[in-house]
């Protein structure tokens, strides 16, 4: 298992639960997740937490099928079937990796509009690890403006 200890997981809860990006105070680049050195300017700077808008497009993806899932996801694969893992390019720029949910693997395509949702990622020793997954953008009849 790709073991992440509870304190390590906990430290990154704002990123894992709410998709809080880190804006470089030097060049303005949004980093996600946190990095020692900014991806934009390559400098060791300070960051300002910035909530991201939770929308993006699929940049690339792969499918995890029978036998391919890491141990913490093997029961998920057995009970809920194959699932997609996508690299999502967020509106603000960062590309992040996340599981696809609420869609069948054959519904996933590059360029597809997705939104971040809060889901159970896995659980370890009875402790639920919640986090962000992506699903196809929900269509609404309300104009929402």
């Amino acid at each position, binding site marked *: 298992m790709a073991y992440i200890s509870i304190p390590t997981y906990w430290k990154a809860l704002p990123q894992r639960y709410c998709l809080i990006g880190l804006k470089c105070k030097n060049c303005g680049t949004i980093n996600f997740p946190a990095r020692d050195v900014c991806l934009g300017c390559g400098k060791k700077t300070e960051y300002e937490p910035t909530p991201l808008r939770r929308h993006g497009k699929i940049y690339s993806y792969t499918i995890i099928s029978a036998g391919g899932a890491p141990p913490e996801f093997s029961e998920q694969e057995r*009970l*809920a079937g194959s699932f997609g893992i996508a690299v999502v390019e967020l509106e603000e720029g960062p590309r992040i990796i996340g599981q696809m949910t609420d869609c069948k693997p054959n519904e996933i395509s590059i360029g597809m509009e997705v939104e971040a949702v809060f889901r159970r990622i896995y659980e370890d020793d009875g402790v639920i690890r*919640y986090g962000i997954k992506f699903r196809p953008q929900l269509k609404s009849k309300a104009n929402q403006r």
Partner: protein
Amino acid sequence: MEAGIIGYGVYIPRFRIKSEEYLKAWGLFAARGIEEKALQGYDEDTVTMAVESSANALKRARIDSDQLDGLFFASTVAPYMEKLSSSTVAAALNTGSEIFIADFGYSTKAGTSALLSCLDFVSSNRGKLGLTVASDNPEALPDEPIEHGLGAGSAALLVGKNNVVARVEDTHSSSLEIIGERYRRHGKQFLKDSGIRAYTEQAFNQALTISVTNLLKRLGAKAEDFAYAVFQQYDGRSPYDVGRKLGFKDPQISPSMVVTKIGDAGCASPLIGLCAVLDLAKPGDRILVASYGSGAGSDAVSFLVTDHIEEHRNKGPLLEDYLTKKECVDYVTYLKLRRMLGEKQ
């Protein structure tokens, strides 16, 4: 100024199972008046559902989560027996730490109990903005008739004093001790009921009659004064049965009857019913909401819809958006997604 609903939002999971699947598997479908019901995906629970309905309520009211002073979470099946779920919802909404949180459970009346506490919280000026979110996914063993109707869903109601879309006119609650009607002992995963329909109906009717008739008396109102009546939805028939006895007509009840499409969403059902009606209501409409709680009582609340409803409604996803976005599954897939097969979690 009085506290009222200033935002509302729902969430219904994507998966559905139709009653025919039960007929194929068991030779019968024991839940009356339910065509299909919603079930959670493998990665969902009552907390994840609550996060989405809450976000929809905040979005509809154009309120930032860090303005919330209180969060009242209700569920009969919260993921932890000790450890608050409201804190997870608050963290996922990014409310910040300056917030009062509380969990409600133990009964299908928990949603309205949380709402009444939230209304008190705001009315008494302990906080300016409170969020009530009820989220439920009741579980029973597959060979129990009560399991057939059990569905899932979540509704969130934002409570404040400004830009109220539904004002609270009055409330009335009742308590009744009804043993063995709908219950789950400590440490048990699965719900049980008496299995005696007449007993359940009697309890349901008695508890609702006390809360509703007393509320109407206090208001000096009659059943026909209400545009909509929303009752606890264990199945697709009992709300009509109790409604008729209380003087309501079927067209006042049917718009809230989401149970026919999502099943019994436990403590969330009366609030999802209220949201269904808010998606349709006009200014000046009066809405009666009455819950019933697992052999123990009922809360009745009377709402008056304000002029703000029209501009407000289309600022967030509607119930219909979730009802139309669905994927129907067969019975074996249903059992897998419910984690009835394989290791229990």
